[in-house]
């Protein structure tokens, strides 16, 4: 082998060696692109399963679901989860414009989660007072986790499905450290319910 070849081998080995030795210092300056940053919002039925969700609910009957949020934003986050009551005509949040629903929140959760951490909580709810007519029902009082809210939410009788349909809407908001305000995270889940007069 010629001397020039040896020189080339030494130069390549030198370059690779220097890069390996300097790699701990270089990681401080080079930032590799990270994956998508998002927050997961989910709703589970009894037994923490994606089943056994309450649907037919009667006045005075206790119901529960588990709601959870997983932080994958790459840093700690401050979340506010609003619980709202919706009927058939109330609008959903708009995913395209990333705007929340116009419904007033009844109940709310506030919590912090570090990166990759999952927060979970049980939501107990009861329709404490409601009125019924042939074509309309009104949820007067909805009790969520022992707080009795004056909901006064009417729902028209759905002749096709034969239901008084309501939805419990969960909207996820996050605290923005740059603007120092809580903004809608464009994530929501809902639980469909049929209010019945008797269980």
């Amino acid at each position, binding site marked *: 082998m010629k001397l020039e070849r*040896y020189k080339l081998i*030494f130069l390549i080995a030198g370059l690779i060696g220097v890069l390996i*030795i*300097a790699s701990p210092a270089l990681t401080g300056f080079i930032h590799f692109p990270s994956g998508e940053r998002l927050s997961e919002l989910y709703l589970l039925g009894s037994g923490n399963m994606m089943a056994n969700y309450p649907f037919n609910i009667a006045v005075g009957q206790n119901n529960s679901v588990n709601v959870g949020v997983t932080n994958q934003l790459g840093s*700690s986050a401050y979340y506010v989860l609003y619980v709202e009551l919706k009927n058939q005509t109330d609008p959903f949040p708009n995913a395209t414009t990333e705007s929340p629903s116009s419904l007033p929140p009844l*109940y709310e959760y*506030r*919590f*912090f989660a570090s990166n990759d951490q999952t927060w979970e909580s049980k939501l107990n709810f009861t329709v404490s007072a409601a009125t019924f007519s042939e074509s309309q029902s009104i949820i007067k009082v909805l009790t969520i986790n022992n707080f009795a809210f004056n909901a006064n939410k009417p729902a028209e009788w759905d002749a096709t499905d034969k239901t008084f349909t309501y939805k419990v809407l969960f909207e996820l908001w996050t605290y923005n450290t740059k603007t120092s305000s809580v903004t809608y995270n464009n994530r929501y889940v809902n639980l469909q319910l049929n209010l019945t007069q008797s269980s």
Partner: protein
Amino acid sequence: MLKHTRFFVVTLFVFLALGFCLNSEPRVFSQVDQASSKLQTANVAVDQAFNAVFDAEKAGANVSSLLTQLNVAADDVAQAENAYRTGDSNTAAVQADSALPIAQQVMTEAQDAKQNASISQQNTFWSTISLTVIGVIVFVLALFLGWRWVKRSYISRLSEAKPTVNTQ
């Protein structure tokens, strides 16, 4: 006489009732205002505490215990908001008040954690740079010595080699 007495009693009752209403209404409003103001203060305190925790985390501090503490304050604020929505101003005020000292304590601890993390990060940075520079110098020197040895042995092998004549 009886007529006058009755008139006096009725007038007195009306005045007392009116006075009670006028006196109690501002008290109710003031209670609601107080709860609302306390809620706002608690919210701002929790927000500021989180800003401090977030900065500490960015500086490289371990903030898991601070987040655990702050979760207690956040839960108090949420319960206060929920109580306020149900019209229970007293509970709202009490819950908001209980969030305040926790948030303030977390903020102080987060600021300390940020300072310590910044110093530690700076030290780590400079020690990494120093070790890298020393490592590179040692490696380049070793490579240079190796190269010299290879070069010398190559030349000596070349000079010791006997010339051969190719015959056809």
